[in-house]
């Protein structure tokens, strides 16, 4: 773990799982919860911590999440997407009352 148990998560109100990101919105990957294999594969495609990703399309049910990163589009399986944590960028559309 990156922080002590019980310590507040910085910007917790701005963190989402990639599959929760709304279409059209952009976020920055802050953590990938998974083994080395998955991290390496994502990293090789340019999806690593610090990458900006824009959600392109919504999905039905547990369908794949389509995002744009580094000028290319990727389809990421729902399960894999739900292990990628993004911090949404302040586009002025954040839910009211949750500003840091």
């Amino acid at each position, binding site marked *: 773990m990156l922080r002590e148990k019980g310590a507040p998560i910085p910007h917790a109100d701005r963190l989402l799982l990639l599959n929760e990101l709304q*279409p059209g919105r952009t976020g920055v990957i802050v953590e990938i919860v998974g083994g080395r*294999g998955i991290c*390496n*594969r*994502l*990293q*090789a*495609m*340019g999806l*690593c*911590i*610090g*990458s900006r990703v824009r959600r*392109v*399309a*919504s*999905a*039905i*049910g*547990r*369908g*794949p999440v*389509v995002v744009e990163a*580094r*000028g*290319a*589009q*990727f*389809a*990421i*399986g*729902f*399960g*894999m997407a739900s292990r990628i944590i993004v911090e949404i960028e302040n586009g002025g559309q954040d839910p009211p009352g949750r500003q840091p």
Partner: protein
Amino acid sequence: MADRILLVGNPNVGKSALFHRLTGVHVICSNYPGTTVEYTEGSLNVGGERVQVLDVPGTYSLTPSSKGEEVATHMIAGGGTIINVVDATNIERNLLLTLNLLDRGLPVIVALNMWDDAAHRGIRIDAAALSKELGAPVVPTVAVTGEGVRELVGKLAEAAGAAAGRGVRERSDGERWAEIGRILAKVQSLEHRHHTFAEWLGDLSVQPLPAGIPIAVVVLAATFAVVRLVGEGLIALISDPFFEGAWLPLMERLDGAIGGGILGDILIGRRVDGEIHLRESFGVLTTGVYVEFGMVLPYIAAFYLAVGALEDSGYLPRLAVMLDSVMHRLGLHGWAIIPSLLGLGCNVPGILATRMLESGRERLIAATLISTAIPCVSLQAMIWGLIGERGVRCVAIIYVSMLLAWLVLGRLLNLLLKGRSPELLMEIPPYRFPPIRVAAEKLAMRLVQFVREATPLVLGGILLANVLMLTGAFDLAAAAFGPILSAIWGLPPEAAVPLMVGVLRKDVAVGMLETLGLGDAQMVVATVGLAMTFPCAASFIVMLRELGWKGFLKSVGIMLATAAVAGAALNLSLKAAGME
């Protein structure tokens, strides 16, 4: 000059197109990541010296995550000058592999491919500055037209010297990404521009609702319709007039010259109502030639015309996104729809394409599903041509049975085999529309390949069937396997023989079944059984190679069990429904 050249790059950047330009060797190029799963060899003349050129499967990194990528890393380790093919429309993502190659101290020359497309998209890259930043020669190219290829070859020799100047570097991918950001700021400028129609369509077709799923349904239905219409059209307008008008009279004359006997039986076959019958006489030159060129070839042309358009446009990865959820229920993920679709043409490339799947479990499921429940276009051509004459109902029952078998078997395998299906992770390429000439060349190459590979098998299959019939081996086979067939599938004992010939070619086997005078229900059961049991010898060999002995035996066991159960169930339900 090194003794060999490797074409290395991310998936779907045009390595195969460049390979064709360099060597003149035809290879299949499509617009989806993972078209090339095996390497292809060719040679190039550099300064009077013949150099081996290898088209390497695409890879994102030098740490492989699929069998195709394993092939790539293995080949890179084998040495040689590397032409690193980079998609100029997206150098940011591509440069990670470039830096990985450079850091290893390998002799690399960068081909900035799709240069024309990048210019259209308002992407300006300073190739000289990029070359300076990377410390390796960089040449802009357009592989589909051949632009820049001569210059690329001219600069090949500079790669080794540049590598010696750079040396080896140790750094993490994170550091490399930072370096890429720095390089891009210096060499690339983007012009702001509006969304193009292709991009708008791209976004629309990847969003399931309201447009993505309807688009997928329309595309699949249109593909099927095109294959049917074009296939039937070619038969009605070209192949039937030729065979009825020219070939048949020629055969009558030939038969007169031969004057019967064993040679006549084998070459011309038996007469039906006193006349030579293109479908039923079953001679090597009558039915053999007619089945391959008159019935199957038109559908092969129609199929690869339609599927070629799907491959080249870049729609297939979007279809994979739409079908991902369905495929997960079968233990696969969306990408597996691509090998399955290719399998509808011929099981061999379909099974080969399963290499792009990540796990052994997925490859086993996908290959088993393809060889069991996906009929190849040669078989389908015979189903439409011969069984279609018995009415649409029979054809529909066969298709529905195969589809059900595919779904049920996939579901069962997913439940029974240990492990879970991995997640989809796939790049979605932009829509592209290649020049008609390139598409036509690809179609021509596939037709030539079909004729070359199928002709000996079709003619040999009919020859073998005739020899077996003359020597009485048929009766032996019918006596041995017939009772089982009668018991479980309700077929006459003679049906054992076509099922055995099916190991050579399925299309020939359907033709033989048709000569047995079966009822509709029996014909449907026999065809489904034929489609599901042994795939033809060519697919058998590929399965063995791809799955290894253990996986192969498992797969064949599953296939036989499925065929037995499905045939029996179909037989019982058709009887219950009162079909004769």
